[in-house]
C-alpha cells in the first residue's frame, strides 16, 4: 500500500501545477480560516471580528469550518482528473502496466492518494478548528467541544466521495477538461431530474429522492450553516428550523457511491485496450 501511495505522490509532487493546486485546496482554507478568526480593522471605520458573532463557539465551529473548507475541494478535483488525464495523454498508463503495475494496483494507487489527501485535509481543518474554538469559546468542557465532531467525519467522507467521482469521470473520458465538464453536466442533470419529479409528484418526495443522487448526497453531508447561525440568534423563529445534522445514513449513501465509482473505474480499465 505504501509503495502504491509513494508512486502516486512522486507523480504529483514533481509536477508544478498539481503542487500549486494541492497547496491551494488544502493549505489555503487553513490560512483563510486562521485570518478570519483575527480581529480585522476595516480602514478605521469599524472593527470586524467574526468571533464576536459567536460563529467560532463550540459546537457550531465544526460545522462552519468544514462547510467553508469543503468549498476548496474543487481545486483538488482538478488534480484528480488531471492525474488520470495526464496518464492517458502521456501514455504513461500503458508504460506503467508494461513495467509490471497491475490494473488493480493502478486504480488503488490513485484511490490511496485520494484517501491520503483527505486525511491530511481533515486533520488540518480539525486542528485549526480546535485551536480557534478553544480561543473563542466560553465553554471548553470536553463534552461540548467534541459534540459537533461528526462534521469532521462527514467532511472526510465528503472529500473521498467527491474525489472518487472525479476519478471515475477521469477514467471514463480520459481528458481532464471533459471530465470537469461532465461534473457540471451531472450537477445540471440532478436538478433537472429533481424538477421533473417535483413536477410529476410533489416537492417533498422529489427532495427525498434527490438526496440519494451522488452530488446532492455529498452536499447534504454538511448543510449550509448560515441558517443555523441565524437560528442561534433568533431562537423563537421556528420557520428557520431545518435539519442540519451530519447523519450516519447520509454518510452511508456517499460511501456506497464511493465504492461504486472505484469499482466502475476498475472495471472500465480492465475492459479497455490501451
Amino acid at each position, binding site marked *: 500500500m505504501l509503495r502504491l501511495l509513494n*508512486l502516486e505522490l512522486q*507523480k504529483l509532487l514533481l509536477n508544478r501545477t498539481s503542487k500549486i493546486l494541492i497547496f491551494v485546496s488544502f493549505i489555503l482554507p487553513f490560512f483563510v480560516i486562521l485570518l478570519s478568526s483575527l480581529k480585522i480593522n476595516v480602514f478605521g471605520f469599524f472593527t470586524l471580528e467574526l468571533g464576536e458573532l459567536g460563529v467560532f463557539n463550540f459546537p457550531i465551529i465544526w460545522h462552519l469550518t468544514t462547510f467553508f473548507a469543503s468549498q476548496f475541494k474543487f481545486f483538488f478535483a482538478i488534480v484528480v482528473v488531471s492525474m488520470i488525464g495526464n496518464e492517458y495523454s502521456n501514455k504513461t498508463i500503458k508504460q506503467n502496466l*508494461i513495467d509490471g503495475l497491475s490494473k488493480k494496483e493502478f486504480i488503488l494507487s490513485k484511490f490511496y492518494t485520494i484517501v491520503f489527501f483527505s486525511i491530511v485535509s481533515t486533520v488540518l481543518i480539525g486542528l485549526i478548528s480546535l485551536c480557534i474554538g478553544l480561543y473563542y469559546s466560553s465553554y471548553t468542557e470536553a463534552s461540548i467541544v467534541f459534540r459537533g465532531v461528526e462534521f469532521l467525519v462527514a467532511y472526510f467522507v465528503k472529500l473521498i466521495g467527491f474525489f472518487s467521482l472525479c476519478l471515475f469521470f477521469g477514467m471514463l473520458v480520459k481528458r481532464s477538461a471533459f471530465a470537469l465538464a461532465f461534473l457540471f453536466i451531472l450537477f445540471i442533470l440532478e436538478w433537472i431530474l429533481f424538477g421533473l419529479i417535483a413536477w410529476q409528484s410533489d416537492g417533498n418526495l422529489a427532495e427525498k429522492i434527490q438526496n440519494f443522487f451522488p452530488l446532492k448526497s455529498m452536499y447534504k453531508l454538511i448543510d449550509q450553516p448560515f441558517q443555523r447561525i441565524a437560528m442561534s440568534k433568533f431562537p423563537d423563529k421556528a420557520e428557520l428550523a431545518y435539519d442540519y445534522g451530519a447523519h450516519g445514513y447520509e454518510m452511508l449513501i456517499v460511501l456506497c457511491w464511493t465504492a461504486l465509482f472505484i469499482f466502475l473505474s476498475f472495471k472500465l480499465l480492465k475492459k479497455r485496450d490501451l
Partner: protein
Amino acid sequence: MESILTINNLTKKFGYLTAVKDLSFTINKGNVYGILGPNGSGKSTTLGVVLNVVNKTEGDFHWFDGNTSTHDALKKVGAIIERPNFYPYMTATQNLKLVCKIKGVDYSKIDEKLEIVGLLERKDSKFKTYSLGMKQRLAIASALLNDPEILILDEPTNGLDPQGIHQIREIIKQIAAKGTTILLASHLLDEVEKVCSHVVVLRKGVKLYSGRVDEMISSHGFFELKTNKESELVKLLENHKSFGKVKVHENLVTAFLNEPMKSDDFNKHLFEKGITLTHLVQRKESLEEQFLQLTDNNQN
C-alpha cells in the same frame, strides 16, 4: 530448451477486424527473435496482449513455466512499445526511479543503465528537453533496469535519424551479446536480418513462418556472373542439371541453384569449357527477397 513465452492459438478481434488470428509460437531463452510483418499485420497487438495492455479475444499465453502470473512475470521483462512514454516534467533519473518503484528494483541500477545508453551526463535534464533519439535510449535504459530475462522492442528505430538508428542497433547488439533474449518487432527487414537469429513472419494477423532466419525458404542461393561470351554461358547454364532459373539483365547473368555448389568448383568448370568470367558472386537471398517470396507465395 527453457521457454520464456508460449502463445497458443491467440486471437484478437477489434469489432469486425481480426488483428491476430490463431497465432501460436514459442520464445526460447538465449535467442534473438524478430517479429516481421508489414504495417498493420498484428505485431504490436500481439505484443500488447502478452504485455497485459490489450485484452485477448481467444486463446492463451503464458510466461516462463506457466506458474507465474502475467503481472509478476512482467517484472522480469523489459519492454518498449512504439513510442517512449515518460513523464515530461520529470528528469531522466526521476522517471527511472518511478520505474524502479514499480518493478521493485534498487535505485543503484539507474546510473549503471544510463551509462550503457550514454545518457549519464544528461540524467538531470527533464524528459521533455530530450531529442527523440535520447528518449528512445532512455526507454531502453528503463527496460534494462531489472536486468530482464527478455527484452521486447517494438519498432525501436522508428522515426530516428541514421545516427540514432545506428546507436540503437549498437546497443541492441551489445545486449544480445550478453545473452539476453530479445524479441524485436519491426517492418524494417535489414534491421531484423542484422540482429536476429529467429523470425516469426506475420501478415494480416496470420503466421506465415516461424523458425531460423536462414531456413526461411529452402534455397541454395544463386550466382551473379558477367562474361564476354554471354550467349555461350547462358546456353551452358540452361543445360546444366544443378541450375534452375537463369535470368539475364543488363549483362548480368543470375543463375539460381537447385543443389549446393561451391564457387571455386563452378569457376573451374567454366574455365575448362572455355568461358572466362569477369564477375562472379555467390549469394543467398536477402531477408527482404525471402520475405517477399514468402508473402507472395501465400497471396497466390
